[in-house]
């Protein structure tokens, strides 16, 4: 059932509207005076000037390298699976693909593409990544001449992503295995 809200009837001054117009003009004049004579600018010269983004801002997802400069992504394709707008496309290495640039985790994507036109910056890829290899960074503005350029490949994503240190579990496993020299059989 509809509820009828009893409104307070407008007073005489309110019915005139003039005080409200005067109030609005006061704000406008205040800002005009501020920017004209006091240098208090409230707009920004975008794109030369940009906002300072808060920490943990969720912009475009990029791939990162570890502190040794190796690709962290192992091509598990979980981000491709979870990506709601299907922006991510990974080409696994296959059995004769390029060897990974780090020891022990012998898998690395042959190609890793993110279609930035599709990406909705939801952060699911970062959340699902078991390798801490993809992060939403503070880049939110993409410029390209055509649609193809908006599909970022592995090289570009790694260059934009930078370095993100971490526990390096594969390296740690390899060191642990090497420490077990007494392992009885070398096959």
């Amino acid at each position, binding site marked *: 059932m509809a509820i009828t809200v009893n409104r307070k009837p407008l007073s005489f001054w309110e019915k005139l509207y003039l005080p409200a117009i005067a109030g609005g003009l006061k704000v406008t004049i205040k800002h005009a005076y501020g920017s004209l004579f006091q240098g208090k600018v409230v707009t920004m010269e975008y794109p030369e000037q940009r906002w300072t983004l808060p920490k943990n801002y969720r912009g475009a997802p990029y791939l990162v390298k570890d502190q040794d400069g190796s690709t962290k992504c*192992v*091509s*598990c*394709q*979980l981000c491709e*699976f979870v990506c709601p707008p299907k922006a991510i496309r990974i080409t*696994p*290495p*296959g*059995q004769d*693909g390029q060897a990974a640039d780090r020891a*022990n*985790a*012998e*898998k690395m994507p042959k190609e890793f593409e993110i279609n930035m036109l599709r990406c909705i910056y939801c952060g699911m890829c970062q959340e699902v990544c*078991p*390798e801490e290899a993809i992060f939403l960074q503070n880049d939110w503005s993409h410029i390209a001449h055509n649609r193809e350029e908006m599909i970022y490949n592995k090289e570009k994503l790694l260059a934009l992503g930078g370095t993100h240190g971490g526990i390096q579990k594969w390296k740690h*496993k390899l060191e*642990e*295995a090497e*420490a*077990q020299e007494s*392992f*009885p*059989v*070398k*096959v």
Partner: protein
Amino acid sequence: MSTAATTETKPAAPVIEKIKVKVDGREIEVPRLTADWSGKLTPTTMIQACEQAKTDVPHYCWHPQLPVAGNCRMCLVEFGTPAMGPDRKPVINPDGTAKIAKSPRPAIACATPISPGMEIYTTTPAVKQMREGVLESLLINHPLDCPICDQAGECKLQEYSVDYGQSASRFVEAKVHKPKAVDLGPRIMLDAERCVLCTRCIRFTRDIAGDDKLGIINRGSYNTIATFPGTPFDNNYTLNTVDICPVGALTSKDFRFQMRVWFLKETKSLCTSCGTGCSTLLGSREEKLFRYTPRDNAAVNGPWMCDAGRLNYKWIQRADRLKEVQVFGKKNTWAGALYQISDRLKRAQAGSVAIIASARQTNEELWLISKLKAKLSAVSDSVARFGEADKLLVSADKNPNTNGARLTGICFTEIGSNLPQIAAGIQSGKIRTLIVFGEDVTKHGLSADLLAKLETLIVSDILPNETVKLAHYVLPGAAHAEKRGSFTNTKGRVQKFMKAVEAPGDARAEWEFLHELVHNVTGQNGFVTIEGLFNEMAKDVPAFNGLNWAALGDTGVTVQI
């Protein structure tokens, strides 16, 4: 001809006494004896009773088609048997039911035979604790490689971890490390760290494949699956160990790092590499085929499949597939080519046409060709393809549908016996038109010079070859993965297969253009769906009488051949 279409796979088994057991309080009747992996009758075990009661008992080492090993301990359950009094008579509760003496210790369900009145408990807190304990123990030295492991997504360790696992490991010591990426044989890669030592692979290759190549070496937590140094694991059934490996220890080199399994669409299909016709699943993603895996079919292949058949799929997506309809070397449309062909066939004199079909075609296609043959009074045959057979699955007949070609009347008992007659007919000028399906006849006694004498050479094929080069009309066909249809294997099992991927370019399933051609030439109405076509064929071909597409099911029907 007898029309006894039957789904029975074996002669009637001897009558086996049924006994009553209770699984989680529900009473079911199970046979006292069950056939084991070798077909021998052995006492039914608790895990089999639970399976019949549709109660899931987690297990790693037990496999219905392998000898029982009982080493993984994952299937531990609690049970009880009717209590006996001092007078050796069952003790009866006040309410009239038999008193159950619960066993003080659990037992492994895979190796404990059932007895009358037995009660099996699979959901008690103790059973849950045991499963959690076993799983934690198996995971102690497991490397947790899931992100780079090909088994991820179809891994029993992952599945049971969801049910019985813990979110964090309590193990603080260093894990035992074992060799990774070990080359066991030409098609198999071993990661010893992931292995749970269930010995399924060892039992398979020793007892099923009959090639005792694998064993366990080293002691205690250093136990490792290995071959004897210098003897590669290379029999024709090695890839089955990849299927039965419950974890990612044994992986296929061919499928290694190709695609994550959860992306694969699995299509029920058949292997076309020999006359056995193993049931398969084709794994594809976005029109690309990635792998064949066997599909359980007790009447044909059980859960197994040979390596040669499994890896024989790459030709389907070769770049040089025929993709265009060609008329005298120029690209044309289906409508244009079929119009011209129908016109030529209608004007052809009776007896001046020969048809060489392929026993790699489906029953439906061969039947449509037989309609053309009847109308044109054509002479027809197919090409024989024989090779070596083995004891397990591989048949000597390398055509998947020789029996289909026989039953539809395309060839006779001795396949290929008409080919010299066709060659002679072309030589003498009696045969003016030749229709070839999927065979390179230049390799089967019809030389290029001979084919040049023909007025009309119509060729439908999948890949380019010498015959296609000489053809006046080229009709690009579809591989079995790109169409639906049915095959009749060497034992008369009629099985259907489904479409996994689209045919490239203008290529079309043969039955689609054949039904149009049959309609144009004979005036008989076409059948636009494969179901209708199969059902019509079943009415016409005596051996298939009484069959219909739906009744074939997933595993097929055996007909009298």
